[in-house]
């Protein structure tokens, strides 16, 4: 048994190697607390997406531990991974690739609930057995008209698709959502709307986020605590208040310079 306190997800010294032996994720430790948004900044190729896939148990770890509250996810057997993962959801960078183009929005949206019948989120109280009503409620949460339920993904814009995916991530009332560059492929004005939406939903539902992005400004907007990743390692870690302090790592300061100019 491990003493956890407030933390939802704890990762200890996780390492993931490529087939060639190069370390994509090099001994990273992090802790995400209940209701907080932890930011992770890094340029492309620094291993941040691999880290996300490791935390989602989509990749097998080479070393390290992942704890979800009191459950050691790294020890979970392959067969029971699906059960262990119930409390973690994700939204990826490319909304078009995240929706099966051959399925209607309704079916993609309800996927998590359809296949995990035992989950009964409290915001569905009163209509737990009405699939259509649940779907409409979810779309309403992210500000999408319910007329899109029977549309196919190509009838929606990128921003709308990303909203649908956010709704799906929330549908099982997870304690943590991993957001891997959720706005990178969207226009800036749409990015602003999505970021606002994510913040509002966090206030309403108390869910934790791991917000991963190359955009220091967006990370700074979203989170109170952030980590900077470079070549598979965490090189810096600070709170929002300390971002401009002199103790920052040179790499962090380089990034700051870019985003301030």
């Amino acid at each position, binding site marked *: 048994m491990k003493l956890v306190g407030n933390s939802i997800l704890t990762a200890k010294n996780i390492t993931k190697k490529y087939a060639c032996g190069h370390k994509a994720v090099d001994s990273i430790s992090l802790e995400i607390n209940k209701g907080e948004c932890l930011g992770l900044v890094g340029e492309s190729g620094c291993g941040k997406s691999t880290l996300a896939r490791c935390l989602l148990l989509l990749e097998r770890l080479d070393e390290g531990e992942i704890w979800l509250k009191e459950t050691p996810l790294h020890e979970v057997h392959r067969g029971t991974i699906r059960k262990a993962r119930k409390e973690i959801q994700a939204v990826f960078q490319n909304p078009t690739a995240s*929706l099966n183009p051959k399925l209607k929005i309704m079916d993609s949206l309800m996927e998590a609930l359809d296949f995990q019948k035992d989950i009964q989120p409290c915001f569905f109280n009163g209509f737990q057995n009405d699939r259509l009503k649940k779907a409409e409620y979810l779309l309403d949460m992210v500000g999408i008209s319910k007329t899109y339920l029977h549309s196919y993904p190509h009838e929606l814009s990128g921003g709308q698709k990303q909203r649908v995916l956010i709704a799906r991530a929330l549908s099982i009332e997870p304690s943590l959502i991993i957001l891997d560059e959720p706005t990178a492929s969207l226009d800036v004005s749409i990015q602003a709307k999505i970021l606002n939406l994510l913040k509002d939903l966090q206030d309403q539902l108390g869910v934790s986020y791991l917000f991963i992005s190359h955009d220091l400004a967006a990370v700074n907007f979203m989170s109170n605590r952030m980590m900077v990743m470079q070549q598979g390692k965490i090189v810096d870690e600070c709170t929002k208040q300390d971002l401009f302090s002199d103790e920052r790592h040179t790499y962090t300061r380089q990034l700051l310079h870019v985003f301030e100019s």
Partner: protein
Amino acid sequence: MIQTLLLSRNPYRVVILVLLALSVILMTVPVLVPFDPNHVDMGNRLQPISVEHLLGTDHLGRDLFSRILVGAQTTVGTSIFVLSIALLIGIPIGLISGYIGGRIDRMMMRVVDAFLAFPDYLVAIVLSGLLGPGMINLVIAIVTVKWVGYTRLVRSTVLSEKQKDYIAGAKINGLSSFQILLKHMIPHILGNVMVLATLDIGKIILMIAALSYIGLGAQPPSPEWGAMLNEGKSFFYNAPQLMIIPGLSIMIIVFIFNLLGDYLRDRFDVKDQKGGL
């Protein structure tokens, strides 16, 4: 319902419509047939086209029109049967091989390569030669050469789709591998498989007829088009219709299926462009 089918632009509906029409014709064959196709009447042999015998009679006095109709049942029916079995074998192997990958995939693909290394006809002829003549052996021979195409097609679709984020999403949403194949992969392969299958039916009909013609498939009394061609060839100078009519029948039915396949391919290409925005 017929009206909505006729008016709709959905590519699936056209196929359904054609298949529906075809199966209606094939099913009403026993009613339409004016004579017993195997009734020998030596007094009436090699009759020309007349009101009583719409397409004349053959060298044993059997009604050619009846034989063509019943032959349609044999030829088209058998080829659809062959195709269904090829799909039932090819699709699951392609799905599993592509999705699991690794050693199983490499092993399966070597087997597939081995089948693809030889021409279709050669393998089919050798196999049905080894197994002996007869319809069932013919079916086995053609299924053996046809399933690999579907395995390859399905596998390549699965390989490219399984990298996409929505598959990662499905895993996170708690779907098992089997559920992912069923919910996400089947809708993806359906269109491609349907196009290939429609184009293939023509080829299978030709193959059945060809193998029957050289005496490996259907055997003489049965009214199969290829076998009829074979029987008719000795009378080509006196009664060319004995070869021309089954030959034309084969041509027309293959033509219909090829047109259908081309139409479907065009429709799906257009749809893919739309979906790929």
